[in-house]
């Protein structure tokens, strides 16, 4: 069986765990940075932990940026996890102001108001009103369940209707997942969130196989 989904291997993030979680959810994936391999699959996952500018540079260098744009143009499914989600946006204030992939209108901001401005650990996701599509990857039983986060920046989309869940860090409410026509993105790591996280990948598997 050919892999249906590519996990983009550009040296950022825990790609092996994503592959294992997809397998658990019944989806065969390939870890790759080859444009040709990626084009053969139906969907892509852009993972990532680390610095936004460094990640953009790597994507540009490896020409993967063109494949992502091609997927987007053709309305094929693009999934972003953590830094991968942030890269979909127009700009980030990380270190020097840098431009992202601009697939989603909005910006990426640093947590400022907390003394401990790095969000590492488990926090609940609260499903948003706009998370009502039949094609959502977050079923209602995941409302107020804990997911694993590791980040110090968060996304601020212009269109609030894209938001599928919010979470709270300190006393700051932030967007923990969103959905557009062809993009699904999580600030948390479903592959590190135990049984609840695997449920997310099982729904993604259904979407891809439908």
């Amino acid at each position, binding site marked *: 069986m050919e892999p249906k989904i590519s996990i983009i291997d550009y040296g950022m993030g825990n790609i092996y765990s994503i592959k294992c979680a997809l397998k658990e959810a019944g989806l065969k994936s390939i870890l790759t940075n080859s444009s040709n391999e990626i084009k053969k699959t139906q969907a892509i996952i852009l993972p990532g932990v680390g610095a936004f500018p460094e990640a953009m540079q790597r994507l540009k260098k490896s020409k993967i940026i063109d494949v992502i744009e091609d997927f987007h143009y053709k309305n094929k499914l693009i999934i972003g996890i953590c830094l991968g989600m942030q890269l979909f946006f127009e700009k980030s204030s990380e270190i020097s102001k840098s431009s992202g992939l601009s697939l989603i209108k909005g910006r990426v901001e640093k947590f400022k108001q907390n003394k401990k401005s790095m969000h590492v650990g488990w926090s609940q996701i609260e499903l948003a009103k706009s998370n009502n599509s039949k094609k959502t990857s977050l079923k209602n039983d995941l409302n107020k369940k804990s997911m694993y986060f590791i980040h110090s920046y968060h996304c601020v989309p212009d269109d609030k209707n894209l938001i599928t869940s919010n979470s709270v860090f300190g006393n700051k409410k932030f967007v923990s997942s969103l959905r557009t026509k062809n993009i699904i993105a999580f600030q948390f790591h479903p592959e590190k969130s*135990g049984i609840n996280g695997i449920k997310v990948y099982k729904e993604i598997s259904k979407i891809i196989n439908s």
Partner: protein
Amino acid sequence: MNLRIIPKIDIKNRNLVKGIHLEGLRSLGNPRSFVEIYYSDGADEIIYHDVVASLYERNNAAELIKDASKNIFLPMTVGGGINKLKEVEKILRSGADRVFINTAVLNNFSFLKDCIKNFGSSTIVLSVEVVKDKHDFYCRKDFGRESTDIKLESWLKKTEEVGVGEFLITSIDRDGTGNGFDIDIAKKISKLKLKTPFILNGGFSKLEHFSEVLKVCRPSGFAIGSMLHYNQLDKVSESSSELEGNFDFKSKKISFKDFKKFSISDIKNHIKKKFKLQFRN
């Protein structure tokens, strides 16, 4: 943020081992079967520590994590003897989310800066293993074997400035004893008002040990070894690897009486009852 209960898996070759004061390592079984039990019992993270890596100058945990990642979907923090950026990368590519470092930073402070620059603050945990001398605590390196004249407080302050993601603070005096975490360390940390979250490790065996600490300071997590491991001995499989280490303890079926039978859920329930603290659900 939810408080984390974190089983700490010490590894020698392919065995889960546990010592006292980081010494006299007993082989307790196959690490994989311990981790499977902890996953289903609600562990929030797993720490893997290759305890002989510093001595043999190689970290063997990568393979074990790769294997565990297949069906354990939890954050994993891995360390032991890591002193090269290449090693950090190898471990992260094997399914680990974060690495912890100690000796390499005490030997060469710029290694910490390099790690943070390359992998980001959130990926780098600084392990600090201390021994008490009169009223002060001093950092040790090489898994407790080498002493330094660096005090706990100054080291935490200095490394916090560089931007480590979290501290893993071990009381060597209490490790494996079951006598509770050293409250003097908790008090000293509390005074520092750290901005960086910290995990405390060493000595837990009773439920009250957690409340004692929580009255003094608020760690982001508790790392637990003996208190959990000794309960699983009749449930876990033997390691299939070479028979190295002290197996007498298991083969003679000696029970380790200091440790009562508590599970991760027991610990969480106890803390929930006494404090307004949340755990993941």
